[in-house]
């Protein structure tokens, strides 16, 4: 299958290792992966902060860049949620007919990584090896936005060498919420503190999630405390093999 990687602007800029991991993983599973370089951003930050008209050019660009692919995969439930749920809203509110049609055509082909692996490629054992104690935070956009369910955990359970430990109060929001962390910094910090307590209770050395934005928030708190807990994107764990040792 010829798959386009929609890396998202945030991963592209701050977490390129996540993109490299997705490329490696999908190629290892026998697929062609392309990164259309004309891609930029899904506009989620603008949408969630209330700046809707600004998104229209991004939306148009997205449909032009990804419209020709069989499948588009992104390692970010929140950006996929933006495409799947909010693109049609913005297109109907501000777009012309052509844009609405282009959006409706591309949306069903955009997948989040874990759902793409489990639902489209029908694989849970991706041949990964990762000998660490790991706890997994399901993130709100994965859990309640995309309804990804236990797909990420099914993938992690098949990883060889992994010591997967349950995160207490896993379904509670970490307090990131995009610009919420800036606009309501004090409340965000209070939520972060509780999330970090739960992470540290597990004794895990690695905190994983499917969204680097939540990981940046929780991980930023954990390094501030010199907790020794690393934050690693799900894709990077799934891409790891014994040869990496």
């Amino acid at each position, binding site marked *: 299958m010829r798959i386009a990687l929609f890396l998202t602007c945030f991963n*592209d800029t*701050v977490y390129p290792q996540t993109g490299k991991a997705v490329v490696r993983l999908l190629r290892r599973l026998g697929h062609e992966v392309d*990164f259309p370089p004309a891609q930029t951003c899904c506009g989620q930050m603008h949408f969630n902060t209330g700046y809707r008209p600004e998104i229209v050019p991004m939306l148009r660009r997205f449909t032009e860049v990804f419209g020709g692919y069989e499948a588009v995969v992104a390692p970010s439930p929140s950006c996929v949620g933006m495409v799947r749920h909010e693109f049609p809203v913005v297109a109907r509110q501000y777009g012309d007919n052509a844009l609405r049609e282009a959006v409706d055509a591309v949306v069903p082909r955009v997948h989040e990584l874990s759902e793409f692996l489990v639902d489209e490629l029908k694989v849970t054992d991706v041949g990964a090896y990762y000998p660490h104690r790991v706890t997994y935070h399901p993130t709100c956009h994965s859990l309640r936005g995309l309804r990804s369910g236990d797909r990420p955990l099914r993938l992690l359970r098949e990883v060889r060498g992994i010591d997967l430990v349950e995160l207490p109060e896993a379904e509670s929001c970490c307090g990131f919420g995009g610009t919420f962390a800036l606009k309501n910094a004090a409340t965000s910090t209070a939520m972060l503190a509780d999330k970090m307590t739960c992470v540290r209770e597990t004794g895990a050395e690695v905190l994983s999630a499917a969204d680097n934005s939540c990981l940046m928030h929780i991980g930023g*708190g954990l390094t501030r405390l010199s907790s020794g807990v690393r934050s690693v994107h799900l894709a990077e764990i799934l891409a790891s093999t014994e040869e990496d040792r």
Partner: protein
Amino acid sequence: MTSQRAHQRTNVVWLGSPSFPEAAKPLLRDEQLRSNLRRATGTIRERRLAVTGELDDWEELRTAGEAVKRRTLRHLDHYLEQLEASVVRAGGQVHWAADAEEANRIVTRLVRETGEREVVKVKSMATQEIGLNEALAEAGIDAYETDLAELIVQLADDRPSHILVPAIHRNRAEIREIFTAAMGRYGRPAPEDLTDDPAALAEAARLHLREKFLRAKVAVSGANFASADTGTVAVVESEGNGRMCLTLPETLITVMGIEKVVPAFSDLEIFLQLLPRSSTGERMNPYTSLWTGTTEGDGPSTFHLVLLDNGRTATLADATGRQALACIRCSACLNVCPVYERTGGHAYGSVYPGPIGAVLTPQLVGVENAASLPFASTLCGACYDACPVKIDIPEVLTHLRAQAVESRRARRKVPSAEALVMKAAAAVFATPGRLAAAQKAAGLGGRFLGDTVSRLPGPLSGWSDARDAPVPPRESFRAWWERTEGGTDEEER
């Protein structure tokens, strides 16, 4: 519209408070409050999950509740006129109030016409919304709250911080203090040796309230539902204090938001299952009172129904936002909201706190008068999952955020700092070339900073107060992809 909305501002009490982030700060520092809230919301949350989980048709019930509410809102004028006719036919009188001021004026007049100077009250959000107690006080009429939690709030001269559990922010030691200090001012004082044992506290409240029930000639209530076909009004409560008010006095005045009407009496079958399970985690409501007009020799001989608009028809005009009017005030969204759990209700500056308050209040008062509320959420979606009538609260939140931004744009000649940042970001995302240039600049900057940044400037400092920020790598993914020709270079695999 602006002047009309500005007028409405006074119509939902206590919106003069600071914006949500400012109001939240002192509350977040209150350890006692945090632990009271955590314990209370955690307990209710678990009970709700247990009792909603035991019904096989819970999701169908939610869908049915949503359908009835949405249909009613689409034809609200029709059902309200039907309700009015039904109530009048059953011996009641109906009054229409466009806003808080008019509603308060009507109720005050009705109480004065009885010649009484005091009323007992059934717990009611609508009368909280319009500040009825304060309006009655100005007219020399004492209004006594009889719901236990409302009584605690009233005695403490406090404000409710939860829709269903107004005193959720208080623990029993605090309640003992309040009873001892204040009960004597309003009637029978608390016993001198009052302890903080829940049974002792309840007994003190019982004795204090009993005097009021037996004396009162006029009662004021809200309404959970009113069926248009029969004119029946319904109030659900847990203590039976409401029922005392609804049966003992001679005159009953009910103030009801116009969105509380349901088409048929039989629709109550749905809501009387949805409400108690969602709100208190109970299978059935302990006290459900239904009355239809007046009945000779049974209950109040005079019944007034005041139908309150107060921003609701304006809300109804917004096809996305109007779903907030489907709310049945169960509080399930408050109890699952991680933001509410940390701040409590007072930060929302409205009698409607939590997720539903964040979407309802700005619509009732005009979004420019409560512009921080739609942003008081991480959009985690827990509220939507918990809502018994499936109000898509995150959808309304982002919808209102866009309205808040548009209204600020319309009023300001000079764009805000945030608008400039968003504009600049949109320009960067307009072309991949600009994005690549910005990434390169960030990566170069990052080379001097080490692995993480512990202090960020200006508006970003809220982040670095508690979190390290990652430093962008020297090479973005797209730069790597270009250099290695799609990662085909083995070394760069």
